């Protein structure tokens, strides 16, 4: 069972490496979002320092949805999805492996870029550490929730926007606790551990539920 997981993971990583650019694209989009915000809210350093974690989180959320609509579409088009239905390995595990590969190639580069972009928003060392820690804990949930939207829209030619519309409302709890934990890292009334523990719990719940929801959607094709 675990070897089937590794098989899909390796195959996806290999395909992503040969296509190339998926990580760069997400990071550049992330950079654009973070860069345009000061133009909108003004270059006041104190304001940016205060809302910086929120800007980074919203940007990471939008950037991580980029490309998620293709999660199952390529497999549906080339016939691989039909073969996944006929394999011993449960479809849920295949979904999980695909999400793991997508997170590694798309969300992990965002996490790595976040400290650099945080410097542009007047974030000090502790705030940067808080943003990185919450992104590491929270972005897997974003990928897993997005997978439900991607599975539900897999047969639609232009399902990207619909996928985002389906997934975004479900990501709100992750965003709330991600931002509050990141903001709590630099002080405040709430200790960092409280919202961070809830954020971790949200990721674990998505890990347990989303593969089943996405696989159920894929079975309805």
């Amino acid at each position, binding site marked *: 069972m675990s070897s089937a997981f590794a098989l899909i993971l390796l195959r996806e990583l290999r395909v992503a490496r*040969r296509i190339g650019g998926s990580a760069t694209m997400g990071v550049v989009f992330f950079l654009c979002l973070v860069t345009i915000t000061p133009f909108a809210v003004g270059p006041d350093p104190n304001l940016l320092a205060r809302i910086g974690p929120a800007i980074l989180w919203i940007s990471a959320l939008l950037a991580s949805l980029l490309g998620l609509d293709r999660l199952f579409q390529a497999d549906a088009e080339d016939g691989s999805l039909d073969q996944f239905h006929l394999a011993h390995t449960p479809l849920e595990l295949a979904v999980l492996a695909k999400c793991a590969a997508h997170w590694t190639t798309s969300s992990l580069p965002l996490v790595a870029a976040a400290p650099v972009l945080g410097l542009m928003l007047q974030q000090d060392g502790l705030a940067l550490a808080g943003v990185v820690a919450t992104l590491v804990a929270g972005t897997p949930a974003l990928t897993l929730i997005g997978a439900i939207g991607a599975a539900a829209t897999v047969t639609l030619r232009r399902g990207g926007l619909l996928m985002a519309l389906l997934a975004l409302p479900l990501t709100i709890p992750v965003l709330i606790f991600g931002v509050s934990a990141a903001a709590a890292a630099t002080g405040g009334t709430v200790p960092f551990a409280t919202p961070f523990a809830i954020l971790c719990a949200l990721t674990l719940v998505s890990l347990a539920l989303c593969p089943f929801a996405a696989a159920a959607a894929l079975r309805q094709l």
Partner: protein
Amino acid sequence: MKPALHLHVEGLCVERGGRRVLANVSFALVGGEALAVTGPNGAGKSTLLRAIAGLLPKEAGTLTLTGATEPDIALETHYLAHADGLKAQLTVAENLDFWASYLSTGENARSLPVAEALKVMALAPLAEIPAAYLSAGQKRRAALARLLVAYRPLWLLDEPLTALDAASRARFSAAMRDHCALGGVVIAATHEPLGLDEARELALGKVAERSLV
């Protein structure tokens, strides 16, 4: 000696988009037999194959497979459709390696190693080429090689001969004959002769009730 394979399809009805595409299809096959499903475009040939594989829900009827290792038909089935199941960025050998492991049912004695399967389909020189660079016929041959690298007794083939040249057709007909000789079953939707003398035929017409005669 394992018992022979029996596939029974009884009164199969399938609807797609609220329209009944298959009404009351019945037939039975035993190991070693091949069935050519024929009929005009839109007669429900592909629907029949997808329904047997479990990729489409059936409205009514029963499907039973006896004499196989697994009770679940899907796990004993190879399904080949218009989409080849090849990742364009991976080489032919990488694609086949993946499916050989992923679709394996543990019957490795009857599965061919990837290199052998490539030879059977005359793809050995193309093993290290990314699938994106293959012609339509070469892609089809790579997809057919998938049937050989992980043994499964029931082959459901949707237009398997599309885009194949005469030599490849002969090669694939031989592979189907070998599969039947090993006790496997082939069901192929086709407009052309399969190159199997003993193949039975199920003619699907439009709408009318039908069963195998």
